[in-house]
Every structure is written in C-alpha cells, then in structure tokens.
C-alpha cells in the first residue's frame, strides 16, 4: 500500500518536471537528481569553508600574542623579578615586585567600592526592578558598560586626584570601580533572574519575610553565579591601564599608603614598552606574562568551575 502511494507521488513529481526515468521508479521513492544540486552543494561547502576560515584567522592573533608573551617573557622572569624593585636604565636586575603588589592593592580598592554597589544594585533590579525606574537603571547600567576606560580615569582624576591634590591608589581604585559597577550590576541581575520562582515561593509560603527570602534564599541560590560574574569583572579590570595613567600614576618604590601614587603592573608594562631600551622591553614582556597568567587563570578557572556546576 505504502509503496504504491510513494510511486504515485513520485510519478507526479517527475511528470511535473518532465523527467521520468524508469530505473528510478523501480528503486522506489527517490527524486531525480537535479544537476543544480551539485552547484548548490558546492556553494554550501565553500561558504562553510569561508566561515571556518574566519574563525581560524581570528584565532591567529590570539595564538601569536600568547606565543610572543610566553617566549619573550619567560626568560626574563626569576625570583628577583617578582620580589625586587625596578632599577634605573642600564643597571641590570631588578623587578616589578612593587607593581605586582600595587595591582593587588588598587584592584582590591576597586572591589571594595564596586562589588557591594554592583551586587546590591543588581539585587534591586532583579527582585524589585519590574517598574520604569528599574528598567531605566538596568538600561543605563548596560549602556555604561561601554564607558571608554580613559574617561573613567578622567573622572577619577577630577573627583579624587584634584580633591586630595595627589595621585593616589584610591583614585585608581575609584576609576576602576567606575568600570566595574555596571558590569557587576548586570551580571548579578542576570544571575538572580535565573533563580526559579518556585524556590522563592516555597520560602514565602513558610512565612519567611520577603527581604529574608531575597537575602538568604535567592542570593544563596544565585551565589555561585554572582561570584562567577564578580571574578570575571575583576579579571577584566585587572588589566586596565588607561584609567590608572593619571589616577594611581606610578611609583618606583613599595606602596606607601592608599593616598600615595602607586605602581601597577599594566601601567608599568606600558611605561617600559614605549621606551627604546631592550632591557626594559624584556621587563615589559615579563610583566605582560605575569599579568596575562593571572588574568587567564582567573578567567578560564572561573568559566570551567561555572560550567561544572551549572552544565
């Protein structure tokens, strides 16, 4: 029965095209092969190849960057490099110990300012943000993630540096937090929106007040996603240079306090890179290697941990 039906169907198709081939009928249901089909297949292959080529070409710079940073940076790294202060041009040895220390201090200050504001604003947007104000804030946070980093530096300068009349670690931290807050807000909002409402309802049904539900149940459930977002934001700002150029500035000595200029790894790499001295270039590469390792470990580690947990 079924076969007959197929044959009738096929005959119709083939009559319509005017291409009846008896052998095709005897093999059962199979449409005659349109010669244009090969061309279409070929175009499909070519486009797939081109698209794959785009991916390959886009990966080349990444590999080249990683390769040059490792091959140029590795020979220049030793214990001295991590623990010593920079030396003047021509004097061999020395390191970027103070810049590594300074990066941790400035990023730490940025986290102290940026994480609480970002996370709590994100909590508002996800839990109470279904109104015009909430949507506007969410939109603004989204738009602010595109703030040019150099502009964040200028605001750190006019707000803090001019006020204290000195470059300082805290000005650098403020500048970085300007970049950090919108990112953390949005990732927090997105992660808390994923918390199933059934969990919230279960808690409310037990008579737990709404704010406690939010604080313990919703935040508790979304905790790891928020931490993931926060760590990615930290990875992102740790490498920022432009906001620090005229806020934390630079220093050839160990950190002297958060109201003093402070050396940071990105700024130090930049300073060394634009000099004409090969010895300092080697130091710039070594600094770049340390920075890139810190950031990639944070980045890749967090993503893998997150995938294991959620995926």
């Amino acid at each position: 029965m079924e076969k007959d039906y197929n044959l009738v169907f096929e005959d119709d198709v083939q009559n319509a095209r005017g291409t009846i081939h008896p052998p095709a009928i005897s093999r059962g249901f199979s449409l005659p092969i349109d010669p244009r089909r090969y061309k279409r297949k070929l175009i499909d292959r070519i486009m797939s190849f081109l698209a794959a080529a785009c991916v390959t070409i886009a990966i080349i710079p990444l590999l080249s960057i990683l390769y040059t940073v490792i091959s140029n940076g590795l020979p220049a790294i030793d214990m001295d490099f991590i623990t010593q202060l920079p030396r003047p041009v021509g004097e061999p040895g020395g390191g970027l110990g103070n810049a590594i220390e300074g990066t941790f201090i400035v990023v730490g200050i940025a986290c102290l300012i940026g994480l609480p504001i970002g996370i709590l604003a994100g909590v508002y947007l996800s839990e109470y943000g279904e109104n015009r104000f909430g949507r506007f804030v969410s939109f603004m946070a989204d738009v602010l993630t595109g703030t040019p980093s150099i502009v964040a530096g200028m605001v750190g300068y006019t707000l803090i540096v001019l006020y204290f009349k000195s470059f300082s670690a805290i000005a650098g931290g403020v500048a970085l937090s300007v970049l950090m807050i919108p990112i953390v807000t949005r990732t927090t909002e997105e992660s808390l929106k994923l918390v199933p409402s059934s969990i919230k309802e279960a808690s409310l049904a037990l008579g737990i007040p709404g704010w406690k539900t939010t604080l313990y149940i919703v935040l508790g459930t979304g905790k790891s996603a928020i931490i993931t977002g926060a760590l990615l934001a930290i990875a992102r700002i740790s490498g920022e240079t432009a906001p620090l150029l005229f806020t934390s500035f630079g220093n050839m000595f160990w950190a002297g306090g958060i109201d003093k200029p402070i050396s940071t790894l990105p700024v130090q790499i930049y300073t060394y890179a634009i000099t004409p001295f090969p010895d300092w270039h080697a130091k710039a590469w070594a600094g770049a290697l340390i920075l890139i390792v810190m950031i990639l470990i944070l980045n890749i580690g967090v993503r893998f941990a997150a995938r294991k947990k959620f995926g």
Partner: protein
Amino acid sequence: MSFFRFSRSKFSGDFIFEAVVGLFALGILILAFFLFRELFIGSELSRNTFGLNFLATTTWDPVNEIFGALPFIFGTIVSSFLALVIAVPFSIGIAIYLSELAPPKLRTPLSFIIELLAAIPSVIIGLWGIFILAPFTRDYLAPPLSTYLGFLPLFQGPMYGLSMLTGGVILAIMIIPITSSVSREVIMTVPVQQREAALALGATGWETTRIAVLPYARSGIFGAVILGFGRAIGETMAVTMVIGNSPRISESLFAPSYTMASVIANEFVEATSGLYVSSLIEVGLLLLVVSIIINIAARVLVWKLLRVEGGGRA
C-alpha cells in the same frame, strides 16, 4: 514608583530592604550623572574659549594655547571605521559558523577561544602590536596594498610601522570578540522553526542561513556592529601604542595618526595650563557622549530583537 506604594503599607523589613538596595540602584544613575557632570564642569574653560570651533580646528598647539580637536576626531573615526571594515565580515563569518555551520562539538570550545581574546588586556595587545603587528603590517600588508591599490590616495606614501593602518588592524582584532559573540547570540535567537522550514524545502546549510536566518537577525547583527564601533572609539592603550601619535590629517592610511583617547592618555599628565587640561577634558566629554549614544543605539537594536523573540513572533 514602588517607593510610594510601599510607603503606604506599614514600615516593615521589606520596605527597608527594598529602599536600601534601591538606593544602590540609584547609585548607577548617580554614577552616570557624575561621569557627565565632572567632564562637563572640567571642560567649561575650553568650551567657553573655543566654542564649537573646537570641533573644527586642526591646530593643536599647547605652546600658544590653541586647541582644536579635529585631527583626533578624524583619527578616531577613521581608525574605528577601518576596524569595522576589517572586523565585520570576519565577525559575521564567525557568528554564522559557530551558530549554524560548525559541527556541534566544536561550537562551545571555539567560541570560548574567541572570547578569550577579549580577556587579554589592551596594554598587552599594544605591546604585541608594537613588536609584532607593526612590523608585520609594514613588511607584509602595506607593500601589496600599495602595489595593487596604490592608485588610491589611501595607500600612497611611505609606510611606517606605526600608522593608521596598524591602528585599524589592532582595533579590528580587539572588536572581533564582542561583535562576533553578540551577532552569534542574536542569530541563536532566530526561532528554530525558521530553519526547519528552509531545511524541509531541501535547502542546504548555507542556504538556510542565507534565506531563513540572516534576514531575521539583520537588525540585531547591525546592533552588534554598532556595539563594536563603540568599543573601537573608546579603546585607548593598544591604539595609542601603534597609531604613531601625530596630530595630522592625512589621506593615507600609511601615515601616523592620533585618536581622541590616545591624546588624553599621552598628554593629560603633562598638561600644565588650565586651558590645556580643560581642552583634554572636553575631548573626553566628546568621547563619552559619542560612545554613550552609540551604545544606546546598539542596545535598542539588540533589545528589540530579543524582545521579539520573547514575544514569540515566528
């Protein structure tokens, strides 16, 4: 709005909690306000002295205190546009491959690798740009361009490694991750029925993409491109390190140039007079306003598409 609603109810823990987190949300708006306010006040001197001429003057002369931002505006627009010309075809290709054509097993690791490029600090890309990319464009990219396209003024004159061309290429490398990943997200919002319909008609993988997917995702991809443009405009360190930092307007892409972000990065600390600082702050204000407008445009385009998807139009 909800503050008023709650103030009518009794003064409870819920109200306090909502008010507290609401204040932090308000902090976002205060942050945006401060960004503008600080730059607006800081640039007052320059705005009063030069007025709109600031945008149209090509002289940048700190000694005689005459400041015009046109060379930097030119450099920013041309380098970002060049970056788009290079990056957009690649980004769309990447987005199509990773969402439509690639073997499913490869999709996640490949998109992860592309996004990793975005994690590399700008200053390290700049360092690589100085020592690897600039010599590469000088020795391998510029000669064929001047040989085959040398009749265009764009590709004439001597090629220095540090040039507009190198700046454009490095910006392209830096915006490919964001443009391609947003395009990919947008393409993935295209309803699967759309694809199935095309496939059921016997379309090949590429035909499905061309007929059923791309037209649907067009405005979102355009949003992703604009987002990339916004990134390119605000990008500072890598460009500063490879663009040559010379405030001249040249027809040739081989000549060094200067961007708005890099003039701030280079000269802000050394700016001595009030007018000098104020002019640089005005450049920053300009940069902020332009990138905020661009970002708003991009978000509206991308959001509209995502909302359509939420509404289930297919």
